[in-house]
């Protein structure tokens, strides 16, 4: 195993593929994502889930996101969701007796259990895909601007929206740098003969634990430098700050929203009819 985390951490990475989805107004992307999340939480049939999956697949295709890349980032999630799936099947409460094939105390194997756990599994996977698609296709600044404008009304009740968004931007910007730092420290450790890619499980855990302190100190020092650099460029919170970028809701946004609304409406009709 080589030490290259960044290759396997796909979440939160903006890919800048220049697709029509990339160019949408961030507000329409954020709202669409919320609507689809809402639909995913409500959906209770395989037909509805199929509709939702179709919609997400459509988005992935239009956004030109390579499926292999998405797959690589999902493997860990799939394992976790798989374990969860098995538990849900085995511990399904009150399975209908006519479709229960095997039962031992609380543990059973039934069609009901399979159906229920399957829906749950699909829901988790689709939610993950939704949020990572938003990140793949939206730059951090777009996302921040969208969030800031959408939450603008909350400024009136005194919430520091600009500051909160700035914190989010900086945290997310420094995630890759932090990952890089962890990689470097692990390499430094490996170069000195103790390592996460060899030795017993206990030794590996110890190695990983040992770098926490240096990581923390480096991150703190870095935070101080960044704060200084921001102040040197006259950043003093959102007050009196203006913006270069304007968000425009265009024709493509209207089309995209319409498609998403149609899907969501269809899913809701299926759910409540």
């Amino acid at each position, binding site marked *: 195993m080589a030490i290259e985390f960044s290759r396997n951490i796909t979440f939160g990475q903006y890919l800048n593929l220049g697709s029509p989805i990339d160019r949408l107004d961030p507000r329409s992307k954020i709202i669409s994502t919320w609507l689809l999340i809402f639909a995913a939480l409500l959906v209770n049939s395989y037909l509805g889930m199929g509709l939702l999956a179709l919609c997400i697949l459509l988005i992935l295709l239009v956004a030109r996101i390579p499926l292999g890349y998405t797959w690589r980032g999902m493997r860990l999630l799939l394992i976790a969701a798989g374990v969860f799936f098995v538990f849900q099947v085995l511990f399904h409460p009150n399975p209908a007796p006519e479709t229960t094939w095997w039962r031992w105390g609380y543990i059973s194997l039934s069609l009901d259990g399979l159906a229920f756990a399957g829906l749950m599994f699909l829901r988790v996977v689709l939610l993950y895909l939704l949020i990572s698609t938003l990140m793949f296709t939206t730059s951090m*600044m777009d996302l921040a601007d969208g969030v800031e404008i959408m939450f603008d009304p909350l400024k009136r009740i005194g919430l520091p929206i600009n500051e909160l968004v700035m914190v989010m931007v900086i945290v997310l910007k420094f995630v890759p740098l932090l990952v890089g730092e962890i990689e470097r420290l692990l390499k430094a450790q*490996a170069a000195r003969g103790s390592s996460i890619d060899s030795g017993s499980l206990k030794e590996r855990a110890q190695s990983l634990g*040992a770098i926490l302190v240096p990581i923390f100190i480096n991150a703190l020092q870095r935070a101080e430098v960044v704060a200084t*650099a*921001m102040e*040197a460029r006259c950043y003093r919170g959102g007050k009196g700050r203006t913006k270069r970028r304007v968000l425009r809701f265009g024709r493509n946004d209207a089309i995209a929203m319409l498609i998403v609304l149609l899907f969501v409406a269809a899913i809701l009709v299926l759910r409540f009819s």
Partner: protein
Amino acid sequence: MLEVSKLSFSYNAGRADEVPALHTLDLQIDSGELLAVIGHNGSGKSTLAKLLVGMLQPTEGQIVVDGLPSTPSSIWEIRRRVGMVFQRPDDQLIANTVIDDIAFGPENLGLPRDEIEQRVREAVEALDLGGRINTQISDLSGGEKQRVAIAGVLAMRPNYMIWDEPTTMIAPQQARNLIALAHELRERTGVSIIHITHFMHEIVAFDRVVVMDGGRKVMEGTPREIFAEADALRAIGLNVPLVTELGRRLERRGIISAGTLIRNAELVEALRPKAAALPASEPRPEPREEAVPAAEQAEPLIKVRDLRFSYMAGTPLEQLALDGIDCEVYEGETLAILGGSQAGKSTLVEFFNGLRRAGKGHVWYRGRDVGESGFDLSQLRREVGIVFQQPESQLLEDIVGKDVSYVPRKKKLPPAESRALVERALTDVGLDYETYRLRYIYALSGGQKRRVALAGVLAADPKVLILDEPVAGLDPRGRSELADLIRKLSQRSGLTVVLVGNTIDELSELADRALVLHKGKVVRQGSLRQLLRHADDLHALGLALSEAAELALDLRTIFPNLPLDLLDLDELETALLAQGLAV
């Protein structure tokens, strides 16, 4: 005008642990002036910079920027007038894309949108970033990041810009472009630039130079006036440019009398009449390439064949790093691996000690394939020690003794043996065992941390020592101390040393043999002298030359027979005299 009068500053002023950093400094900077501030680490340069932008408040004395005294209540206007560019490009860029980052400052000033657009456009044009405005910051090179940082400050239309050692963390070629840029920006916008550095060759074209030492201003004048005081500079550990020194020597011999020379072109001009007076001679035949050193016939310690590797393989962000590398490292030799940025140097050396194995191709250590199952990687990594770039940020423990004893402890050596290794390693890097053993690492200076990191690798008693860009961020004194240390180590214990770098400098000159990498391929191979004979194409491969090689290349325009394979001033002087120069 930026006026500094009787400025003193102490960290923790008024407390028991007060550390004085500046002593009654007077300084005047005209608007539109290019001022260089030069001095060693710890001379007070960076403290001065922080005071000028209002990030620290003076303990005593006053700073007045264009009539506005710097006080806690005026700091925002002071910071608008005095912008600052920091040493590390990564720490000062806030947004994700180039254009958003440049707009960050003007947005903070609360300017209307079209004014912001206008300023961003100007800054983009001034720094020639036109093609990159929508690029992600993380996809830029170090030099480009530094240019974005400058654009971001420029867009705030400051009257003064402080550059706090912006060239130490970027490749030499990019550093040179940055210095040229200082002049261009002044012409274009009338901004005054205060460039803080410890490299003399960067400041020859500045209007004025201030030399600092121990928190005091010790000299002030034009570069020519300053360089004329070579002995005074040497007393505080600073050197004059090589051309100045060569000019002095030639003047002492009575060959030229042109006063203090600060540019290569000036020496060329001073020598031109002498060169013209020489009888035209037959072009000297290029020396025959000497046979390969004897060591190369032996079985190599490390052998690499057809190595290929890409970062982020299989993702849209894939980036080719190694493209079919063949090379060897022989026991006991000192090998330099040279190349510009993105050449694949750092990636290659990580294959040498098995940190990376995911590539195509093979790496053998002592005849055994590293990729084979059952190969003892831990053993390999202890025998092939690697000191990474900026090792000071990769220390694993909090106390010096603990960090250096990391490997001996892992190996579970008996305490006496472990202690002996640690003591020897610390002594080797010039840190006294008893004094430093129990010190906290965080409290050490950057240079001391780097020594500790080196000691940590030496304490593993490696057979091969790899140093990845070991001079980056070091001042000239630190660089020559490191060169001495490596020379000592390789002579004493027959240690095999691999030096990775981007410049032909005092360090790569220690090498018996050098490889030049370009875009993941080995494009040149041979002794350093062999490489220097084709010095002009080394430039094209992204390598920077030593001052001596650079000067030899310039002098060759008037002495066509001047050899280029010269390593230092003495050799250059001898070669020049051999051209038949007379009084």
